[in-house]
């Protein structure tokens, strides 16, 4: 996961480092002008040692002020990199602005490497965007049981599979779980979640197809209260944020079951629309955390950055495959560390 983005970021970073280094070179008349900085396609591994050498040679005893001009080319490269990685346009703009303000006008001390400066700016920009993680088991322990979790999202992002995975995850952590089959619309949805629940040995509350999802989920909550179950996982039908009636149905579900957490599920491969719909869902029914599915399809992870930036909510899990255990808690610090890790 994210390895693609990582590679690209590394290339962009090298480019940034390069142009600042080049600026240093031109301000140091003794040295020969810096050669053409290797293109993005060059494997970062080959580049790093030569760059390090170059930096050593180029940095004369002077303080360097990074100017807008030094970084503008490299920043537009970074912009393309982010766009190619599915980071939505407005989010890309925000990150670029962030990095620019972090770099331009900075005084670089002698000895402080260009690399550190660039990494610092990129890191803080990304951390800014990704926010803090979310510890679900800790949340459940700290709250009154049953903890009711409602899953929302557009069609086909993997809500039902995610419910099953989180069910399995929580069960492993020692919590008791009940699933509410709130997708009464899509053909085969109740059967789908039913099979998952059976395989996992999790109790499921279901009505027949076409029933009022609020009623199903209300019953699920009642069951959990009566049986002192720790967690209620409420599946819902996928819906588009443009369908007012379906969104108000979701609003009704929320009023009826009073969820403690609303988890918005979207897929890692979604492009710019991820931002639009996340914002709409957040506006109409709210969202407390995000689960990003199908992260194994895509090594870029731009949607994570886009969505997190747009609604400012933490990422809870990444879905990384078709098996129940293919779910990873998301730790932004670790991810950013990995993205910008020095040794590729």
């Amino acid at each position, binding site marked *: 996961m994210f390895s693609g983005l990582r590679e690209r970021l590394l290339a962009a970073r090298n480019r940034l480092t390069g142009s600042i280094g080049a600026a240093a070179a031109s301000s140091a008349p003794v040295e020969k002008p810096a050669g053409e900085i290797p293109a993005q396609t060059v494997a970062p591994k080959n580049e790093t040692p030569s760059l390090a050498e170059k930096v050593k040679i180029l940095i004369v005893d002077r303080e360097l002020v990074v100017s807008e001009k030094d970084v503008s080319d490299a920043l537009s490269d970074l912009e393309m990199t982010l*766009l190619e990685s599915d980071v939505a346009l407005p989010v890309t703009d925000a990150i670029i602005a962030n990095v620019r303000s972090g770099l331009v006008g900075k005084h670089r001390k002698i000895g402080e490497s260009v690399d550190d400066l660039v990494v610092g700016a990129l890191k803080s920009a990304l951390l800014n965007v990704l926010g803090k993680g979310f510890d679900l088991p800790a949340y459940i322990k700290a709250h009154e049981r049953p903890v009711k979790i409602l899953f929302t999202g557009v069609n086909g992002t993997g809500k039902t599979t995610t419910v099953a995975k989180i069910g399995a995850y929580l069960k492993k952590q020692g919590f008791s779980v009940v699933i509410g089959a709130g997708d009464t619309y899509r053909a085969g949805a109740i059967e789908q979640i039913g099979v998952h629940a059976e395989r996992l040995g999790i109790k499921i509350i279901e009505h027949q197809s076409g029933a009022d999802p609020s009623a199903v989920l209300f019953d699920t909550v009642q069951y959990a209260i009566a049986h002192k179950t720790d967690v209620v996982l409420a599946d819902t039908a996928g819906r588009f944020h443009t369908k007012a009636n379906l969104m108000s149905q979701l609003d009704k579900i929320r009023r009826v079951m009073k969820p403690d957490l609303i988890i918005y599920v979207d897929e890692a491969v979604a492009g710019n629309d991820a931002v639009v719909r996340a914002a709409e869902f957040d506006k109409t029914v709210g969202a407390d955390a995000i689960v990003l599915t199908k992260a*194994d399809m895509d090594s870029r992870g731009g949607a994570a950055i886009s969505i997190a930036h747009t609604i400012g909510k933490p990422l809870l899990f990444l879905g990384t495959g078709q098996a129940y255990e293919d779910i990873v808690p998301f730790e932004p610090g670790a991810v950013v560390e990995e993205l910008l890790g020095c040794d590729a």
Partner: protein
Amino acid sequence: MMDTLSNSLKDALKKLAGKAVVDRAAVDELVKNLQRALLSADVNVKLVMELSKAIRTRSLDEELPKNTNVRDHVLRIVYQELVRLVYATADVKLEPQVILMAGLQGSGKTTTTAKIARYFQKKGMKVGVICADTFRPGAYDQLSTLCAKINVPCFGDPKATDARKIVKDGLAAIKEQEIIIVDTQGRHALEPELIQEIIDLNVITKANHRWLVIDAALGQQASEQARRFHEAIGIDGVIITKMDGTAKGGGALSAVAETKSGIVFIGAGETIENLERFDANGFISRLLGMGDLQALYEKAQEAQMESDIDMEAMMKGKFTLRDMYKQLEALNKMGPLKQIMNMLPMGNMQLPEGVYDVTSTKMVRYRIIMDSMNAKELDDPGIINSSRMQRIARGAGGSPEEVRELLKYYKMMHKTLKGLRGATSGKFNMKRLMKRFSGMQ
């Protein structure tokens, strides 16, 4: 967000409108805005770069055709290049065939399979469906429920685990059907076993068509995925699903470019009937967030009419009832004013609300009233007093009230034009607008 994008695109076009020669800076700005619009519609970054390069070179190099203004010239290039991107619409033949569905998890293959079955059924073909998704729980229930609704035989076994065997059995079981659609499990390009499975299914079914189902929201990943699918089984058609949301479907364009195939269908809605054949114009308009470009061209062409409105005099403030008469006549042929304004890539310029208020029936009445005036009155409406008003009203079969209303409208138009006159040199070129309305190119 999209609105601001399409507005900046319109503004960029607007800047071109007043130019007599192609202006490099204006073209650059247009291309930049176009890039942003396409990128936020999820079109592949490399495709966008190629496209914008082509548009820039063509706009600057190609000679401006006669009787065409710069904006139309550039707009046409943009339009042509975009149409080139979507290739041709893939053909759907009404003949016995086997169709293999492929796509990522959750892209909507099963729903689309049922929709396509319905499409062929409505065309009078005998359709059968095989559910080869042996992985996802409920997949068979989903497909068989949908098929039962439209009385299409659906072969499958929820307990089976071997997709290859199911397909073999299924082909034998429903071989009397003319069209057989094979729904498969969702898979992505990084799963070698599943890719091998679909290669095998393709061999077993000897499928005539292999259609790739693409979620409208799919981002930059679309290229890569489509390429791998294409390598595996040779995709010959793309279906875009979930177009009822806000996603623009730019990812599908990448898929089309990778597979060198066309877009077959568009799915927009949850019911089984919500499937449309692909329409390039509508798709491009949506991609750019602009009104229907082609419809505008057609409308302007239909409204071929004499163009003898004296623009110069009008801009000097000499706007008589005669001018208004011609203007109303022109408008009448082009449809409601507001609709036209929305179609024009003019940016978000505001006209006073009152201008829009004149409905088409009223316009007809106005013209009849003006027919009842004499030349002097048409040239100088100021001389119309109450006795003239009486006469005009009687001649037009109306009341003096109506005549008064017409004069009021005239005064408003006059005032509006005067107001805009000051702004001509600035943001908005009124002359161009009036020309547009009167059908002059």
